[in-house]
Protein backbone atom coordinates (compact mmCIF):
# COMPACT_ATOMS: atom_id res chain seq x y z
CA UNK A 1 0.00 0.00 0.00
CA UNK A 2 2.71 2.48 1.00
CA UNK A 3 4.63 1.42 -2.08
CA UNK A 4 1.59 2.02 -4.25
CA UNK A 5 1.07 5.49 -2.81
CA UNK A 6 4.72 6.39 -3.37
CA UNK A 7 4.54 5.24 -6.97
CA UNK A 8 1.27 7.07 -7.57
CA UNK A 9 2.64 10.28 -6.08
CA UNK A 10 5.59 10.16 -8.47
CA UNK A 11 3.32 9.42 -11.43
CA UNK A 12 1.10 12.33 -10.41
CA UNK A 13 4.08 14.67 -10.17
CA UNK A 14 5.23 13.54 -13.60
CA UNK A 15 1.79 14.06 -15.13
CA UNK A 16 1.48 17.59 -13.73
CA UNK A 17 5.00 18.66 -14.67
CA UNK A 18 5.03 17.19 -18.16
CA UNK A 19 1.58 17.84 -19.47
CA UNK A 20 0.41 15.45 -22.14
CA UNK A 21 -2.10 16.94 -24.52
CA UNK A 22 -5.63 15.79 -24.04
CA UNK A 23 -5.31 13.89 -20.79
CA UNK A 24 -5.55 14.77 -17.12
CA UNK A 25 -5.42 12.48 -14.12
CA UNK A 26 -5.16 13.06 -10.40
CA UNK A 27 -6.42 11.83 -7.04
CA UNK A 28 -10.04 12.68 -6.27
CA UNK A 29 -9.09 13.84 -2.79
CA UNK A 30 -5.81 14.61 -1.09
CA UNK A 31 -6.21 11.88 1.50
CA UNK A 32 -6.94 8.99 -0.83
CA UNK A 33 -4.34 8.30 -3.47
CA UNK A 34 -5.96 5.04 -4.56
CA UNK A 35 -8.87 6.67 -6.38
CA UNK A 36 -8.21 9.06 -9.24
CA UNK A 37 -10.37 11.04 -11.57
CA UNK A 38 -9.25 11.54 -15.13
CA UNK A 39 -10.21 13.34 -18.29
CA UNK A 40 -9.64 12.08 -21.81
CA UNK A 41 -10.20 14.38 -24.75
CA UNK A 42 -12.10 12.90 -27.65
CA UNK A 43 -9.56 12.24 -30.42
CA UNK A 44 -9.74 14.61 -33.44
CA UNK A 45 -11.38 13.44 -36.66
CA UNK A 46 -13.63 11.02 -34.77
CA UNK A 47 -17.21 11.51 -33.56
CA UNK A 48 -15.73 11.82 -30.05
CA UNK A 49 -13.92 15.03 -31.08
CA UNK A 50 -14.55 18.00 -28.82
CA UNK A 51 -15.85 15.89 -25.94
CA UNK A 52 -14.02 15.66 -22.62
CA UNK A 53 -14.68 12.21 -21.24
CA UNK A 54 -14.39 11.73 -17.50
CA UNK A 55 -13.48 8.49 -15.79
CA UNK A 56 -12.30 7.15 -12.47
CA UNK A 57 -9.20 5.05 -11.96
CA UNK A 58 -9.28 2.68 -9.01
CA UNK A 59 -5.89 1.35 -7.97
CA UNK A 60 -5.42 -1.97 -6.18
CA UNK A 61 -3.33 -2.07 -3.00
CA UNK A 62 -0.56 -3.92 -4.84
CA UNK A 63 -0.29 -1.37 -7.66
CA UNK A 64 1.77 -1.37 -9.87
CA UNK A 65 1.85 -5.19 -9.79
CA UNK A 66 -1.84 -5.30 -10.64
CA UNK A 67 -3.52 -2.93 -13.07
CA UNK A 68 -5.98 -0.21 -12.10
CA UNK A 69 -9.64 -0.35 -13.08
CA UNK A 70 -10.89 2.37 -15.37
CA UNK A 71 -14.54 3.34 -15.48
CA UNK A 72 -16.13 6.15 -17.44
CA UNK A 73 -18.31 8.48 -15.38
CA UNK A 74 -20.11 10.01 -18.33
CA UNK A 75 -22.48 8.73 -20.96
CA UNK A 76 -20.51 6.93 -23.59
CA UNK A 77 -21.30 4.48 -26.35
CA UNK A 78 -18.38 2.35 -27.43
CA UNK A 79 -17.94 -1.33 -28.35
CA UNK A 80 -15.18 -1.80 -25.75
CA UNK A 81 -16.91 -0.06 -22.85
CA UNK A 82 -19.39 -2.02 -20.75
CA UNK A 83 -22.77 -0.39 -20.20
CA UNK A 84 -21.70 0.43 -16.63
CA UNK A 85 -18.71 2.42 -17.97
CA UNK A 86 -15.94 -0.10 -17.25
CA UNK A 87 -13.31 -0.09 -19.98
CA UNK A 88 -12.14 -3.37 -21.50
CA UNK A 89 -8.73 -3.05 -23.15
CA UNK A 90 -5.67 -5.25 -23.07
CA UNK A 91 -3.44 -2.82 -21.16
CA UNK A 92 -5.81 -3.08 -18.19
CA UNK A 93 -5.58 -6.88 -18.09
CA UNK A 94 -2.89 -8.59 -16.03
CA UNK A 95 -0.56 -10.78 -18.14
CA UNK A 96 -1.66 -14.02 -16.48
CA UNK A 97 -5.29 -13.62 -17.23
CA UNK A 98 -6.41 -13.50 -20.83
CA UNK A 99 -10.09 -14.30 -21.11
CA UNK A 100 -10.16 -13.55 -24.82
CA UNK A 101 -7.06 -15.53 -25.83
CA UNK A 102 -5.94 -13.06 -28.46
CA UNK A 103 -3.93 -10.47 -26.57
CA UNK A 104 -0.17 -10.79 -26.63
CA UNK A 105 1.62 -10.45 -23.31
CA UNK A 106 3.37 -7.26 -24.37
CA UNK A 107 0.05 -5.46 -24.81
CA UNK A 108 -1.11 -6.28 -21.32
CA UNK A 109 -0.53 -4.73 -17.92
CA UNK A 110 2.91 -4.79 -16.36
CA UNK A 111 4.55 -2.53 -13.77
CA UNK A 112 6.36 -0.63 -16.50
CA UNK A 113 3.03 0.67 -17.78
CA UNK A 114 1.66 3.85 -16.23
CA UNK A 115 -1.43 5.95 -15.82
CA UNK A 116 -0.31 8.08 -18.74
CA UNK A 117 0.04 5.05 -21.04
CA UNK A 118 -3.32 3.69 -19.95
CA UNK A 119 -5.04 6.97 -20.76
CA UNK A 120 -3.29 7.25 -24.13
CA UNK A 121 -4.37 3.68 -24.92
CA UNK A 122 -7.94 4.56 -24.02
CA UNK A 123 -7.73 7.59 -26.27
CA UNK A 124 -6.64 5.45 -29.21
CA UNK A 125 -9.30 2.91 -28.29
CA UNK A 126 -11.90 5.66 -28.69
CA UNK A 127 -10.58 6.37 -32.17
CA UNK A 128 -10.32 2.73 -33.19
CA UNK A 129 -12.76 0.39 -31.47
CA UNK A 130 -11.69 -3.23 -31.29
CA UNK A 131 -14.53 -5.15 -32.82
CA UNK A 132 -13.27 -8.49 -31.53
CA UNK A 133 -13.83 -7.85 -27.84
CA UNK A 134 -17.38 -6.70 -27.57
CA UNK A 135 -17.82 -5.40 -24.04
CA UNK A 136 -21.01 -3.72 -25.23
CA UNK A 137 -22.57 -6.09 -27.73
CA UNK A 138 -25.22 -3.65 -28.90
CA UNK A 139 -22.65 -0.92 -29.47
CA UNK A 140 -20.49 -3.37 -31.43
CA UNK A 141 -23.43 -4.33 -33.58
CA UNK A 142 -24.38 -0.71 -34.21
CA UNK A 143 -20.76 0.16 -34.96
CA UNK A 144 -20.63 -2.58 -37.60
CA UNK A 145 -24.08 -2.29 -39.10
CA UNK A 146 -25.30 1.28 -38.63
CA UNK A 147 -22.24 3.51 -38.44
CA UNK A 148 -24.21 6.72 -39.01
CA UNK A 149 -26.41 6.13 -36.00
CA UNK A 150 -23.44 5.10 -33.85
CA UNK A 151 -21.65 8.32 -34.75
CA UNK A 152 -24.64 10.53 -34.10
CA UNK A 153 -25.13 9.05 -30.62
CA UNK A 154 -21.42 9.39 -29.87
CA UNK A 155 -21.48 13.04 -30.98
CA UNK A 156 -24.40 13.67 -28.67
CA UNK A 157 -22.49 12.07 -25.76
CA UNK A 158 -19.47 14.24 -26.58
CA UNK A 159 -21.53 17.43 -26.47
CA UNK A 160 -23.06 16.42 -23.16
CA UNK A 161 -19.70 16.00 -21.48
CA UNK A 162 -19.14 19.75 -21.70
CA UNK A 163 -22.74 20.68 -20.99
CA UNK A 164 -23.88 21.51 -24.53
Amino acid at each position, binding site marked *: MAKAVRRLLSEYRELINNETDGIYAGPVSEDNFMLWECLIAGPPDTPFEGG*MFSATLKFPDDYPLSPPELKF*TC*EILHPNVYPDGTVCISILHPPGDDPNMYESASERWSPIQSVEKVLLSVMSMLAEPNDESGANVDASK*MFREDRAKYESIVRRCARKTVGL
Partner: protein
Amino acid sequence: MSSSSSSSSSTSPSSSSSEDMAGSIGVPQLIFCAIVAVLFYRYVLSPSQASGGSGSTGQRRPRPTVSQADIESVRAVFPHISMAAIRWDLEKNGGSVPATTEKILNDGFLPEPPTPVTRQTPSPLLPSANGQPGSLGGTGRSQAPASLSSSAAATLGHTDLVTRYGLHSRLETYRAGTSAEQLSSCPKKNDKASLFIRGRERRDLMILEARKKMEGMLRR
Protein backbone atom coordinates in the same frame (compact mmCIF):
# COMPACT_ATOMS: atom_id res chain seq x y z
CA MET B 1 5.26 -27.78 26.91
CA SER B 2 4.17 -31.04 28.50
CA SER B 3 3.82 -32.89 25.21
CA SER B 4 7.30 -31.93 24.04
CA SER B 5 8.92 -33.03 27.30
CA SER B 6 7.03 -36.32 27.39
CA SER B 7 7.85 -37.16 23.79
CA SER B 8 11.54 -36.46 24.34
CA SER B 9 11.68 -38.71 27.41
CA SER B 10 9.61 -41.51 25.88
CA THR B 11 11.03 -44.14 23.48
CA SER B 12 8.08 -44.16 21.08
CA PRO B 13 6.85 -40.59 20.39
CA SER B 14 3.75 -41.64 18.48
CA SER B 15 2.20 -43.62 21.32
CA SER B 16 3.01 -40.95 23.88
CA SER B 17 1.37 -38.23 21.79
CA SER B 18 -1.77 -40.30 21.43
CA GLU B 19 -1.83 -40.70 25.22
CA ASP B 20 -1.56 -36.93 25.54
CA MET B 21 -4.50 -36.55 23.19
CA ALA B 22 -6.57 -39.01 25.18
CA GLY B 23 -5.73 -37.18 28.38
CA SER B 24 -6.73 -33.78 27.00
CA ILE B 25 -10.25 -34.80 25.94
CA GLY B 26 -12.61 -32.61 27.80
CA VAL B 27 -12.76 -28.84 27.88
CA PRO B 28 -11.90 -27.97 24.23
CA GLN B 29 -14.04 -30.74 22.78
CA LEU B 30 -16.92 -29.93 25.05
CA ILE B 31 -16.77 -26.31 23.92
CA PHE B 32 -16.65 -27.45 20.31
CA CYS B 33 -19.67 -29.70 20.82
CA ALA B 34 -21.55 -26.85 22.44
CA ILE B 35 -20.83 -24.55 19.48
CA VAL B 36 -21.93 -27.21 17.01
CA ALA B 37 -25.12 -27.76 18.98
CA VAL B 38 -25.91 -24.06 19.07
CA LEU B 39 -25.26 -23.64 15.35
CA PHE B 40 -27.32 -26.76 14.59
CA TYR B 41 -30.19 -25.39 16.63
CA ARG B 42 -30.03 -21.93 15.01
CA TYR B 43 -29.70 -22.86 11.35
CA VAL B 44 -31.23 -26.33 11.06
CA LEU B 45 -33.97 -26.58 13.67
CA SER B 46 -35.25 -23.03 13.26
CA PRO B 47 -34.82 -22.20 9.59
CA SER B 48 -37.53 -19.57 9.57
CA GLN B 49 -35.57 -17.31 11.93
CA ALA B 50 -32.29 -17.95 10.18
CA SER B 51 -33.54 -17.10 6.72
CA GLY B 52 -35.19 -13.98 8.09
CA GLY B 53 -31.83 -12.84 9.38
CA SER B 54 -29.64 -13.64 6.44
CA GLY B 55 -31.57 -14.30 3.26
CA SER B 56 -34.41 -12.27 1.89
CA THR B 57 -34.16 -9.18 4.07
CA GLY B 58 -35.32 -6.89 1.31
CA GLN B 59 -38.64 -8.64 0.88
CA ARG B 60 -39.46 -9.56 4.44
CA ARG B 61 -38.48 -6.47 6.33
CA PRO B 62 -40.64 -3.43 5.59
CA ARG B 63 -38.57 -0.87 3.69
CA PRO B 64 -37.41 1.88 6.07
CA THR B 65 -38.77 5.27 5.20
CA VAL B 66 -36.11 7.69 4.02
CA SER B 67 -36.96 11.35 4.26
CA GLN B 68 -36.49 13.60 1.26
CA ALA B 69 -34.59 16.03 3.50
CA ASP B 70 -31.98 13.37 4.29
CA ILE B 71 -31.50 12.58 0.61
CA GLU B 72 -31.16 16.24 -0.23
CA SER B 73 -28.72 16.87 2.59
CA VAL B 74 -26.42 14.15 1.21
CA ARG B 75 -26.83 15.39 -2.32
CA ALA B 76 -26.02 18.96 -1.31
CA VAL B 77 -22.55 17.75 -0.35
CA PHE B 78 -22.14 15.31 -3.27
CA PRO B 79 -23.96 16.77 -6.27
CA HIS B 80 -22.46 14.15 -8.60
CA ILE B 81 -24.28 11.28 -6.85
CA SER B 82 -27.78 10.60 -8.11
CA MET B 83 -30.79 10.92 -5.82
CA ALA B 84 -31.75 7.35 -6.64
CA ALA B 85 -28.40 6.00 -5.51
CA ILE B 86 -28.53 8.03 -2.29
CA ARG B 87 -32.07 6.88 -1.57
CA TRP B 88 -31.16 3.27 -2.20
CA ASP B 89 -28.13 3.41 0.07
CA LEU B 90 -30.08 5.12 2.85
CA GLU B 91 -32.75 2.45 2.58
CA LYS B 92 -30.12 -0.23 2.90
CA ASN B 93 -28.45 1.22 6.00
CA GLY B 94 -31.65 2.19 7.77
CA GLY B 95 -31.58 5.89 6.95
CA SER B 96 -28.19 6.77 8.40
CA VAL B 97 -26.88 9.91 6.67
CA PRO B 98 -23.40 9.64 8.28
CA ALA B 99 -23.03 6.05 7.04
CA THR B 100 -23.94 7.01 3.48
CA THR B 101 -21.62 10.03 3.58
CA GLU B 102 -18.82 7.84 4.88
CA LYS B 103 -19.39 5.37 2.07
CA ILE B 104 -19.25 8.06 -0.63
CA LEU B 105 -16.08 9.49 0.89
CA ASN B 106 -14.44 6.06 0.96
CA ASP B 107 -15.54 4.77 -2.43
CA GLY B 108 -15.97 8.01 -4.34
CA PHE B 109 -19.35 6.89 -5.63
CA LEU B 110 -22.50 4.99 -4.74
CA PRO B 111 -23.82 2.04 -6.73
CA GLU B 112 -27.00 2.72 -8.65
CA PRO B 113 -30.12 0.85 -7.51
CA PRO B 114 -30.80 -2.29 -9.56
CA THR B 115 -34.57 -1.87 -9.98
CA PRO B 116 -36.09 0.90 -12.05
CA VAL B 117 -38.95 1.31 -9.55
CA THR B 118 -37.01 3.39 -7.04
CA ARG B 119 -35.49 5.45 -9.82
CA GLN B 120 -38.82 6.76 -11.05
CA THR B 121 -39.59 9.09 -8.15
CA PRO B 122 -36.40 11.12 -7.79
CA SER B 123 -35.81 11.81 -11.47
CA PRO B 124 -38.09 14.87 -11.77
CA LEU B 125 -36.21 16.43 -8.85
CA LEU B 126 -32.94 16.09 -10.68
CA PRO B 127 -32.72 18.97 -13.15
CA SER B 128 -29.35 18.01 -14.61
CA ALA B 129 -30.47 14.47 -15.38
CA ASN B 130 -33.76 15.57 -16.91
CA GLY B 131 -34.09 14.40 -20.44
CA GLN B 132 -30.75 12.60 -20.45
CA PRO B 133 -32.03 9.06 -20.84
CA GLY B 134 -34.92 10.14 -23.00
CA SER B 135 -32.93 12.16 -25.48
CA LEU B 136 -30.28 9.48 -25.75
CA GLY B 137 -32.93 6.83 -26.24
CA GLY B 138 -34.64 9.03 -28.79
CA THR B 139 -32.16 8.07 -31.46
CA GLY B 140 -31.11 4.69 -30.18
CA ARG B 141 -34.38 3.31 -28.92
CA SER B 142 -35.45 1.42 -31.97
CA GLN B 143 -32.43 -0.82 -32.38
CA ALA B 144 -30.59 -1.31 -29.12
CA PRO B 145 -32.94 -0.51 -26.29
CA ALA B 146 -31.36 -2.85 -23.72
CA SER B 147 -27.82 -1.56 -23.78
CA LEU B 148 -28.75 2.08 -24.15
CA SER B 149 -31.33 2.12 -21.41
CA SER B 150 -29.00 0.39 -18.99
CA SER B 151 -26.11 2.66 -19.79
CA ALA B 152 -28.37 5.67 -19.46
CA ALA B 153 -29.59 4.32 -16.14
CA ALA B 154 -26.05 3.83 -14.88
CA THR B 155 -25.21 7.37 -15.84
CA LEU B 156 -28.35 8.99 -14.54
CA GLY B 157 -26.33 10.70 -11.81
CA HIS B 158 -23.70 12.00 -14.23
CA THR B 159 -23.64 15.69 -14.81
CA ASP B 160 -21.61 17.48 -17.41
CA LEU B 161 -18.13 18.56 -16.35
CA VAL B 162 -18.85 22.29 -16.27
CA THR B 163 -21.62 21.68 -13.75
CA ARG B 164 -19.77 18.98 -11.83
CA TYR B 165 -16.81 21.23 -11.07
CA GLY B 166 -18.84 24.45 -10.76
CA LEU B 167 -17.20 26.18 -13.72
CA HIS B 168 -20.17 28.14 -15.06
CA SER B 169 -18.97 31.31 -13.35
CA ARG B 170 -15.58 31.01 -15.02
CA LEU B 171 -16.87 30.46 -18.55
CA GLU B 172 -17.15 34.16 -19.39
CA THR B 173 -13.72 35.13 -18.09
CA TYR B 174 -12.21 32.14 -19.84
CA ARG B 175 -13.71 33.14 -23.18
CA ALA B 176 -12.17 36.58 -22.66
CA GLY B 177 -8.82 34.81 -22.32
CA THR B 178 -7.66 35.85 -18.86
CA SER B 179 -7.26 32.43 -17.25
CA ALA B 180 -4.20 31.47 -19.26
CA GLU B 181 -2.11 34.13 -17.54
CA GLN B 182 -3.37 33.05 -14.15
CA LEU B 183 -1.98 29.58 -14.68
CA SER B 184 1.44 30.70 -15.85
CA SER B 185 1.84 32.84 -12.74
CA CYS B 186 1.31 29.75 -10.56
CA PRO B 187 4.60 28.87 -8.85
CA LYS B 188 5.87 25.49 -10.04
CA LYS B 189 6.48 23.83 -6.70
CA ASN B 190 6.47 20.09 -6.26
CA ASP B 191 5.18 19.60 -2.74
CA LYS B 192 1.92 17.70 -2.46
CA ALA B 193 -0.31 20.71 -1.80
CA SER B 194 1.07 22.68 -4.77
CA LEU B 195 0.71 19.65 -7.01
CA PHE B 196 -2.95 19.43 -6.12
CA ILE B 197 -3.53 23.12 -6.77
CA ARG B 198 -1.82 22.90 -10.15
CA GLY B 199 -3.55 19.64 -11.01
CA ARG B 200 -7.01 20.97 -10.24
CA GLU B 201 -6.32 24.14 -12.18
CA ARG B 202 -5.17 22.10 -15.17
CA ARG B 203 -8.31 19.97 -14.97
CA ASP B 204 -10.57 23.04 -14.88
CA LEU B 205 -8.75 24.71 -17.75
CA MET B 206 -8.98 21.56 -19.87
CA ILE B 207 -12.73 21.50 -19.33
CA LEU B 208 -13.12 25.21 -20.11
CA GLU B 209 -11.00 24.82 -23.23
CA ALA B 210 -13.01 21.80 -24.38
CA ARG B 211 -16.25 23.69 -23.82
CA LYS B 212 -14.97 26.66 -25.81
CA LYS B 213 -13.84 24.36 -28.62
CA MET B 214 -17.17 22.55 -28.69
CA GLU B 215 -19.04 25.86 -28.82
CA GLY B 216 -16.90 26.74 -31.84
CA MET B 217 -17.58 23.38 -33.48
CA LEU B 218 -21.32 23.73 -33.02
CA ARG B 219 -21.32 27.24 -34.47
CA ARG B 220 -19.76 25.97 -37.69
